[in-house]
C-alpha cells in the first residue's frame, strides 16, 4: 500500500510539472485549458542600421583628365565648335560621370582656379593683363538628363542637381559628359590653361 501511494504521488507530481512548469522568458505566450480554438502569440523585433554615403566620379579614377582643344588657325573666334583632341577616360573630351548616395538631394557645384578671370593664358602670366578665355566658352553636355554638369563660369558657383531615384533619398546616376570649345571670341595666340573642380554635397 505504501508503495502504491508513493508511486501515485510521483506520477501526479510529474504530470503537474508538465503542466505547470515555469514559462521560459523572452517573448512568450500560452493558452491553457482552451476549449475550442486556441492561439498564442510572441513577437520579435528587427533593426537595420544603414549609414549614409556619397560617391562622386568625373573622369579617370586615379588622375585628373587634361582635356585639350587645338584651335585651327583659320577658325580662331569664328564660333565653329572645336572638339577636344586629347584628354578624357572615355574618349577625347568625353568623361565618365557617376554619382551615388543615400543622403537625400545631392548638389554638384563648379569652381575653378582662375580667380574669377577665366581660363588664363600661360604665356602672359607676367603681364599686367593676362590673356583669358571665359569659362562660358567651354560647353559640357550630358547623355543623361538625370545627371548634367553645372554650367561653367569664371566666378564659379553654378550648380546642378542629379535626379533622385523615384522620389526617394537615393541617387544612383551615371552619364558621359562631353566638353567642347565654343570658340566665340578672337583671342590672342597663347596656351590657355585652367582647372575645374566639381564638388558634390548632400543637404
Amino acid at each position: 500500500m505504501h508503495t502504491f501511494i508513493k508511486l501515485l504521488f510521483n506520477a501526479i507530481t510529474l504530470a503537474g510539472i508538465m503542466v505547470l512548469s515555469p514559462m521560459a522568458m523572452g517573448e512568450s505566450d500560452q493558452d491553457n485549458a482552451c476549449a475550442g480554438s486556441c492561439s498564442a502569440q510572441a513577437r520579435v523585433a528587427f533593426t537595420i542600421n544603414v549609414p549614409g554615403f556619397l560617391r562622386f566620379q568625373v573622369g579617370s579614377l586615379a588622375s585628373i583628365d587634361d582635356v585639350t582643344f587645338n584651335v585651327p588657325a583659320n577658325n580662331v573666334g569664328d564660333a565653329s565648335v572645336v572638339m577636344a583632341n586629347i584628354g578624357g577616360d572615355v574618349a577625347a573630351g568625353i568623361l565618365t560621370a557617376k554619382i551615388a548616395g543615400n543622403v537625400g538631394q545631392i548638389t554638384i557645384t563648379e569652381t575653378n582656379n582662375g580667380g574669377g578671370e577665366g581660363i588664363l593664358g600661360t604665356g602672359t602670366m607676367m603681364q599686367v593683363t593676362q590673356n583669358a578665355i571665359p569659362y562660358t566658352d567651354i560647353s559640357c553636355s550630358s547623355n543623361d538628363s538625370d545627371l548634367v554638369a553645372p554650367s561653367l563660369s569664371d566666378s564659379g558657383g553654378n550648380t546642378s542637381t542629379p535626379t533622385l531615384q523615384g522620389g526617394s533619398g537615393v541617387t544612383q546616376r551615371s552619364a558621359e559628359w562631353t566638353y567642347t570649345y565654343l570658340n566665340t571670341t578672337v583671342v590672342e595666340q597663347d596656351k590657355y590653361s585652367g582647372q575645374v573642380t566639381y564638388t558634390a554635397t548632400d543637404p
Partner: protein
Amino acid sequence: MKGRYQIFLTAVLLSCFLPAHAVTIVVSGLPNDQLRIRVGSTGSGINVVTFNVPVGQIGNGVPITGTPQILVRVTARSAVANSKTATLTANSLTPMMSAGGDTIPFTTINWTTSDGDIPAGAFDGSNTQSLLTFQNSRSIENTHTFHYSNVNVVPTGTYTGRVTYTLSMP
C-alpha cells in the same frame, strides 16, 4: 509521459499483488487543450535582431547576418482521443520604417535554422504566412539566424519593425 505511466502501472500491479481485478488509474488536474510559444532568449521583453550594414556594402547584394540568433519553441497538446493539428504562422505585413518615413519590406529578411524541425525560409510580407504545421502533442524548437538581403540602396537611417508569430489550433 506514456512510458512513465506504463512503468507506473506495472509497478503498482507487481507491488500490490492484487487479485485479478481491473485497475483504474485516474489522472486528473490536467488542462484541456494547451498551446505554448516562445520566441527569443531568456529574459524579459521582445528580442531585437540587429543588422549593421557596412558603408561600403550598401545595396551591393551581399547579405547581412543579424544578431542575436533567435530560439523558436512551439508546444501543442490535446487529448489523444481528440488529436489536432497546430499551425505556426508569421505576420510580417507592416514593413520596417525609419524616422524619415522610408521603409524596407520584410520580404528582404530570410532565416536559416539549426535543424529542419521548423523549416528555413523568408518572410513573404503577409499577415498569415504558414511556417509549420504539426500533429500534437508535441514540442518543437530550433534556432533561427536571420539575414538581410541588402540588394537595394536605401536611404540612410535606422529601420525598425516587428514580426508576430502565432501558434493556433482549432
